[in-house]
């Protein structure tokens, strides 16, 4: 409706060349003109009552919904429409009519207040088009950059995945060694068995978490595989190509069956894919594995390490990559710190062994639907204000350091994506920073906007110890809409 309306007015503008005022009561948008027929009784738009037409815009509120006073301030809940030719039309609350403040750029809201308003629609329109154009450019370039980022991330991940496989191979060998040693050790150290059992539970939990993480990774992989057209959604047809998922095993995977698997949705994105995954994961064959008919993941480690503090690091062998899944270790409260310490040791060790460029812990982060945020990992971005130097290290921490000496304050460590429901990747939350005196622990909200550059553009502290950071990155740039759809020069008549 609105599109059509815009289109029509555009045609008028083009064909007539000059704007023409179409007669209608003040404050009524063209779309509602048919309801206000002169010299016919007016029925409130909520249908609550009918009044003579001379009571429309007579500066007295007759309709509960305010529809009889579109052009006066009489109704508490009314709204006024300004055409704003040259800019964009808008509705303002009736209470802003003749309040002495210019709200509509075409000045139509202040027709009786004595306020001296100037028509600024043209300038605003130009300015907006300018801004939109710039934004469109940024979005366009940003989106291209984003594609590169996605490509790089994909490559990087494959590389790592390969390394993981290698390591897992190594690990397997190591396990065999450990197993052999264990048998020897067990007989020798029977009394320690009880003590070990205490660790067993924690170890089991760790394993479960590792499994979960792997499952997630698998799920993400599956999603990428399934998403043939890489539009960020898995559709019914995409899923249908996996005949092995046939629920009734009759050999054909029908569309209805697929819809059943997908919970009735026509397509799912990464977040909703999770529920689909639980439906299909047992049957799902990776295209890769199908093609190369590789064995499944190496069997999980069955043996708990002898001593938790020294988790299976052998000078001669590669460590377990799973040990880098540091988030899960928090479950072991007693040894939390030690764990982290060990974890760090292990990480350092790995880095030494494999080269600085690879860090396996990033596998556990959510780097976005297309891993487009991967490039931010292990980077830091600074912003210097009059007093402080702020530092954002994405997926790690935010900190603040006085410009002229003094120690650094932790403004929060990586928590989660916490944007709005439709796109959680617009906001990062960093939590549990240094505690405030008599207050909460510091935390930081990072708002991401599309930009060509990756920069921290501003910081503030709206509430005590709650920081707000604005951050631009190409990774949030959306595919530019068709430029033709951008408003340009349309004028309502």
């Amino acid at each position, binding site marked *: 409706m609105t599109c059509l309306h815009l289109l029509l007015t555009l045609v008028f503008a083009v064909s007539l060349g000059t704007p023409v005022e179409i007669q209608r009561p003040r404050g009524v948008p063209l779309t509602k003109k048919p309801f206000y027929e002169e010299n016919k009784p007016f029925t409130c738009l909520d249908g609550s009552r009918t009044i003579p037409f001379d009571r429309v815009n007579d500066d007295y509120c007759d309709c509960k919904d305010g529809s009889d006073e579109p052009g006066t*301030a*009489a109704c508490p809940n009314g709204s006024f429409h300004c055409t704003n030719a040259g800019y964009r039309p808008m509705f303002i609350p009736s209470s802003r009519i003749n309040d*002495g403040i210019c709200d509509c750029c075409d000045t139509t809201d202040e027709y009786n207040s004595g306020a001296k308003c100037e028509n600024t629609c043209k300038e605003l329109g130009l300015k907006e088009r300018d801004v939109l154009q710039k934004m469109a450019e940024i979005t366009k370039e940003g989106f291209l950059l984003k594609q590169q980022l996605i490509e790089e991330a994909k490559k990087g991940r494959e590389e790592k995945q390969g390394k993981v496989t290698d390591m897992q191979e190594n690990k397997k060998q190591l396990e065999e060694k450990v197993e052999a040693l264990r048998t020897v050790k067990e007989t020798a150290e029977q009394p320690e068995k009880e003590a070990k059992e205490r660790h067993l539970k924690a170890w089991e939990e760790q394993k479960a978490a590792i499994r979960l993480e792997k499952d997630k990774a698998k799920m993400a992989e599956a999603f990428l595989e399934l998403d043939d057209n890489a539009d960020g959604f898995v559709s019914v047809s995409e899923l249908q190509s996996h005949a092995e998922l046939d629920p009734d095993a009759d050999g054909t995977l029908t569309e209805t069956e697929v819809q059943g698997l997908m919970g009735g949705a026509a397509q799912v994105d990464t977040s909703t894919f999770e529920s689909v995954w639980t439906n299909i994961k047992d049957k799902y064959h990776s295209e890769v594995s199908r093609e190369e008919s590789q064995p499944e993941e190496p069997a999980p480690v069955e043996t708990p390490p002898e001593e938790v503090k020294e988790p299976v690091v052998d000078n001669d062998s590669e460590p377990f990559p799973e040990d880098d899944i540091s988030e899960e270790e928090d479950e072991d409260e007693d040894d939390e710190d030690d764990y982290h310490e060990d974890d760090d040791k292990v990480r350092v060790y790995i880095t030494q062994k494999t080269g600085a460029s690879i860090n396996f812990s990033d596998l556990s982060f959510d780097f976005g639907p297309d891993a487009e945020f991967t490039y931010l990992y292990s980077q830091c971005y600074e912003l210097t204000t009059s007093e402080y130097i702020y530092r954002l290290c994405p997926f790690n921490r935010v900190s603040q350091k006085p410009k002229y000496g003094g120690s650094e304050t932790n403004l929060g460590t990586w928590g989660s994506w916490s944007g709005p429901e439709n796109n959680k990747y617009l906001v990062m939350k960093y939590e549990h920073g240094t505690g405030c005196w008599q207050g909460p622990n510091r935390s930081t909200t990072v708002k991401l906007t599309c930009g060509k550059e990756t920069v921290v553009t501003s910081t*503030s502290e709206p509430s005590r110890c709650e920081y707000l950071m604005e951050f631009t990155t190409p990774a949030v740039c959306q595919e530019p809409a068709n430029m033709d759809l951008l408003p340009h020069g349309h004028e309502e008549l």
Partner: protein
Amino acid sequence: MAVISIERMGLLSVFCVCLFFSSAFAVDRGNFKTCDQSSFCKRQRALKPGQSPYRALLETLELSDSRLTLQLINDNNKVHLLLELYRLQGNMTRVKINELKPLKPRFEVPDVLIAEPPTEPLSVLSKDDNGIVLSLGAESQRLIVSARPFRLDIMEGPEVLLSLNSRGLLAFEHLHLRKDTQAQPDGAEVKESVDGDQQQDEVEKDEDGEGDKEQDGLWEETFKSHTDTKPNGPTSISLDFSLPGVEHVYGIPEHADDLKLKTTDGGDPYRLYNLDVFQYELYNPMALYGSIPVMLAHNTQRTMGIFWLNAAETWVDISSNTAGKTVFGKMLDFVQGSSEKPQTDIRWISESGIIDVFIMLGPKPSDVFSQYASLTGTQSFPPLASLGYHQCRWNYNDQEDVKSVDQGFDQHDIPYDFIWLDIEHADGKRYFTWDPHKFSQPKEMLQGLMDKRRKMVAIVDPHIKVDSGYKIHSEITSKDFYVKNKDGRNYEGWCWPGNSGYPDFTIPEMRAWWASMFAYDQYEGSMENLFTWNDMNEPSVFNGPEVTMHKDALHGKWEHREIHNIYGLYVQMATAEGQIQRSGGVERPFVLTRAFFAGSQRFGAVWTGDNAAEWGHLKISIPMCLSLGLVGVSFCGADIGGFFKNPSTELLVRWYQTGAYQPFFRAHAHLDTTRREPWLFGPENTALIREVIRQRYALLPYWYQLFFQAYRTGMPVMRPLWVDYPKDTVTFTIDDEFLIGSDLLVHPITEEGSRGVTAYLPGAGEVWYDVHTFQKHNGAQNLYIPVTLSSIPVFQRGGSIIPRKDRVRRSSACMENDPYTLYVALSPKKFARGKLYIDDGHSFNYDTKKEFIHRSLTFANNALTSSNLCPDCNFLTSSWIEKVLILGASKPSKVVLKMDGKETPVDFEFDSSMSVLTLRKPGMNAGDDWTLLLQ
């Protein structure tokens, strides 16, 4: 309890015990003195009622036309006092007692009385050896002076209204030289304690040893490592008052306590000593930020007031012969015809100065208000905008922040008039300056607000950073305007900016200079929509005794001890004067103060200081503001949401609902709290808060008219029920609901999770209308009202007419020319009356040029008439009457508007379910004479 029993063991041990206890469980309490820790209070309180040593020397009586003087003698030490009695116009009596020949002059508080009160003739009716009977004017009122012991009784007919020194607690510590620094004077001069005979034994003992003297705090006393050198020694004064037939006394703010004052037997007296109390406790008599030494006494027959004009530290003891009695006990007295009449006894104790008491004899509550107003002035008439909503926070961080909060109000369609900046706005807490990074373009910011027809308040505190590069400091230094310490050097203390000086606001030249600092060319970055907030003016001195100034600091020749409670008043006075002067005397000022004294009402608004986000603090805001209203300060409010801590969403919503119906309507929050602008709690709560702020704005015409009335007559705006229902004893203790003017009754919800409240609707034979539903309820009943989170029980009195502006806009200024809707609530006799006041909303032209409209609206005999209350006034308004709602009406066949000799029919609608008659668009100008006839 333990503390009290131990206290009797001696002062030294009390110190130890209290310090120990304070650090153990109540750090905040331990910072402030109890009566026992204040040596004069302890000395005075040790006096027991009984035989007074004072005798009136009747032969010294001198009577001029309106002034009677008489000498009193203390038979123990032979010191002569001079008693002065005045009959004041408007049914008041002034009693002054000073030393006849003090060693040096004693301090008398200036600048509180608006003028020397006009007197009326006194005449002696009879005189004999035992006393004198004086006539107090035309009524059958007499003043009886009894000679031995000295005593005053004010009688009306056979009834004693009030007695002075009836319990013999008059005590006057006369100035004398310290014994150990002086050759032995004559015997009468050496007594160094309260001049009561009970004390004599102890005094004699004290004189035996120097050490004891020090402990008694006569010439020096120490509290928490702060030593008060007391070069003048003991100077305290005390007097008792008996009020026969009185069980209810009110006033003497500021205390976080119930409206009805409690007896103080067994506990501390109510303390009046302006203090910056960190996280104050509820329901105790501790001193807070302000002091108004005025007490009201009320019974079904009469309302009286006692104004104790003294600015030194003051304690007030209250006892009652019926306080301990149960309802059953009282009933038994009644049945058995007990002869004992209820009586309340009051005792005022001040550290220095003279006794100067005004006895306001009423008899009606409104009489007492006008009597007190005739002495100290009325509430300043505030700019209309200041009755709107104020958005404050410590702190809005920078100009960007201010802008986005301002926009937030528009985005969420919530009206507001003022946004506030706390101490962080200034450059290093140097008031009158702006932080160069955060507020680099203050005029740009103020212009942005002005474009929205909104205003700003920036804080200006009275502590001045000691910094030679700071203009304010260097000018005060060069003009020698700082308060001095006991050694005559500039007094310095620790406050927000660090080391600070305190301007001596008692010096008129200093106040004039301070006022001149508000000129637009002096206060850089200020504009006409920038107003001021005076905080920390008790004064707060972080490292001073009890977080305030040392009593031996010097204001010229007077010690801080003498003037302490009036310091804050002077700060606000000078600031308000500055705002008036910057506009050439045209514009009304708006200044908020935390500290106050009698007379502060003339200079602006007060708030109840640093409260907390707790339900108890929401509840206490009602009696705290009611108490202030009773003693002249109508423009009162509490920080909405609570200053310290974070309120729950429910508490915040309830606080907005309460605050919207209290005079000063400001949200404020501590630096450490999370943001709480009205739209941060989800759309539903935003809608609830928006709704109640809108209710406030719709009622602004009523609030404005009430403030005009308060300014004219001294009638409180927010008042206890008993003020309007003085014979209804049920109302005497009600402080969980209140009246706004006479016509709106509000019962805020102050309990968490409340599903219903019981409101008392006063007035037998009267009716009240629910303002939201127009449902009619009978008076003199307890009405149970089921509530939801959106409920705020408000009732309009049957018999009243309230003008509203129902077109709520984004600020009060935007509503200036909007039309009125009249809410006519009929009494059972189909009568109603109200007033409408209109002026420009911001200038003094209402006063200097009589530019206002004041109209009486009366509904009687089925006709609603607007008539002019000020025929020689002239003001033109473009506001008109868009609608008239008549509640409790019956359906007319025809409605006619009579105006200028013409009759025009008016459309109407009648809702028979609620008996509401709505007159559609009668359309007359709000300043015109007109009559609407229902036929």
